[in-house]
């Protein structure tokens, strides 16, 4: 394990690995096929504390460093990318509260997660993907409540989360400065969910539309000041990017592990195929990519822990991690040959799982916009 982590985290990692090996890996193979949501598995993960990982210590969290947590999440992603996505998306749903919420809100969110609940972040709309600022969901003040109307789409943990952080326009004439962030609990009246998407990969995670039809929430549910929602959302994504990189590294590591295990056993021309230099070099290249991606994530996460600027590094970790995950997954299938194309073998799933990591939480094209902005600055 190439993340440098505390003894505490090493100990926890053993338990996480045990749980992933015994429960996640096998069960998720079946759920990936059927598309059924593994509700019991996530309930168990919640009980074990997997949803509490990113809660700061002062609100009851385990007090691990971000890199410590990354080691645990990578292990989960190795076992099943969808499983890790659900856990990681819960962290994503928590971030707006931690970035801009009051202590009361933070504790409330933390309590939900410590009870084993999931969280979700609702920014994306049918008309607002990369162009996140053009969201149409709006919130109107009515007495001591806000009433939200609109539709969010592609929301991970939609329908399963205990709470949702939702962006909505409070002033439709102020552009992005008219967007606010809200803390919506699962039983808010007027909140409903679309059907779950039938996805190419990460099929053990639930993804659906989150619908607001005169959805009423208390005024106190606004996170941060009115009009700061977009800023909070962007700060959320800046952080989240590194975590996407972390999960991507898990997928890539799994791809390489499977390829090596297979290549040692598969005999052609009288020898294991990993005797062939062409394939050995493929493994070397995979390892170079994986370790580099991992260390980029570690760097970005350490900057975050240190309170230093990290947005560019986080974006790099996301782009590079997801790109190499896709490369490594494809390469693993190649090494498996014909068998790699068969669903009975574990690697075709990795291609299907890896693809989304180049798309969600800011497409890799948007990441390049972010990175180049950081480098070039204003012209």
């Amino acid at each position: 394990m190439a993340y440098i982590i505390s003894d505490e985290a090493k100990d926890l990692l053993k338990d996480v690995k045990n749980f992933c090996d015994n429960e996640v890996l096998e069960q998720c193979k079946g759920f990936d096929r059927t598309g059924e949501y593994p509700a019991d598995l996530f309930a168990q993960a919640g009980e074990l504390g997997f949803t509490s990982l990113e809660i700061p210590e002062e609100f009851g969290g385990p007090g691990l460093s971000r890199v410590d947590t990354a080691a645990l999440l990578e292990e989960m992603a190795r076992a099943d990318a969808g499983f890790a996505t659900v856990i990681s998306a819960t962290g994503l749903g928590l971030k707006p509260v931690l970035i801009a919420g009051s202590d009361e809100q933070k504790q409330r969110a933390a309590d939900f997660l410590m009870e084993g609940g999931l969280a979700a972040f609702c920014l994306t709309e049918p008309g607002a993907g990369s162009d996140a600022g053009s969201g149409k969901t709006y919130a109107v003040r009515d007495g001591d409540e806000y009433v939200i109307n609109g539709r969010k789409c592609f929301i991970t943990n939609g329908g399963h989360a205990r709470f949702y952080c939702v962006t909505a326009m409070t002033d439709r004439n102020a552009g992005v400065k008219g967007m606010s962030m809200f803390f919506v609990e699962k039983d808010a009246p007027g909140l409903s969910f679309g059907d779950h998407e039938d996805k190419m990969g990460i099929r053990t995670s639930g993804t659906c539309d989150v619908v607001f039809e005169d959805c009423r929430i208390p005024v106190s549910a606004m996170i941060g000041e009115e009009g700061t929602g977009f800023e909070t959302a962007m700060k959320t994504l800046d952080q989240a990017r590194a975590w996407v990189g972390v999960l991507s590294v898990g997928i890539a590591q799994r791809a390489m592990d499977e390829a090596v295990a297979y290549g040692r056993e598969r005999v052609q021309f009288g020898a294991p195929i990993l005797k062939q230099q062409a394939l050995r070099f493929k493994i070397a290249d995979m390892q170079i990519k994986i370790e580099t991606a991992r260390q980029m994530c570690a760097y970005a996460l350490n900057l975050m822990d240190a309170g230093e600027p990290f947005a560019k590094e986080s974006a790099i970790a996301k782009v590079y991690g997801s790109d190499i995950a896709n490369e490594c997954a494809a390469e693993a299938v190649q090494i498996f040959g014909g068998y790699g194309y068969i669903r009975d073998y574990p690697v075709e799933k990795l291609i299907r799982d890896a693809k989304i990591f180049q798309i969600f939480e800011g497409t890799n094209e948007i990441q390049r916009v972010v990175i180049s902005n950081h480098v070039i600055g204003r012209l």
Partner: protein
Amino acid sequence: MEIMVCIKQVPDDSVKIELDEGTGKPAAGRAEPIVNAFDTYALEMAARFLETGIAGEITTITIGDESSKGSIKNCLAVGASHGYVINDELFEGSDAQGTAYALRCAVRKIEQDTGRDFDIVFCGIETSDETSGQTGPMLAEMLGCSLVTNVVALEEKDGVLHVKQETEDGYNIVETAMPCVLTAARPNYDPRYPTIKSKMAARKMPIGELSAADIDASPDRIGAGASLVRTIELSAPPKRQAGIIIKEDDIEEAALKAFRMMTDANVL
């Protein structure tokens, strides 16, 4: 109810342990140390038992060394409230009677120090390394209390302990006086996983370390010298002759080929 769960740290039982020809000893190198499976069942049963609303705590104990603290810590993360390692080179080479004697001394000493007597002393029915299953029954004899083996469930009814004892074709419900020694078989559920919270809390919990002197264990009853049995030799079981492997593209052909061989060998 005060429950003592005795555990043993053993090599990972999912790893095949074979004889190291060089040393003449078991080659346990690749196998990580874990808590003996049957002991984890005992601990889980004890935890569930108390969770039905019975006041009391679980203490775990093991005879080992510094590395055994890891196993005790793992037990503290899944239901135990107190943990001890009996660590003293005087115990090295003890047979089951020496082990049971040491545990008896420790139980009495802890009872003396805490002022609370144990109602149940719970062991796994056997360990995955030696599989002799002697320690529990010997401990019962030395503590002078009742013994029920092959336990898969516990229940309290009006202050009396009822345990479910697995039998070859079903089960018995056995009423037992306390204090008692129970040995655990496999219940129909898995032991719980530690939560992140419980694991981190367990790391902070103190683990008592006891020497032979601390528990008033007489040196002439422990260790290799006091052992009533002696190992003469370890050997690998004779290997069967390698057989014929049939691998055809057409499974029907393979099956028929095998069948013909079986009729030729006159086994059918």
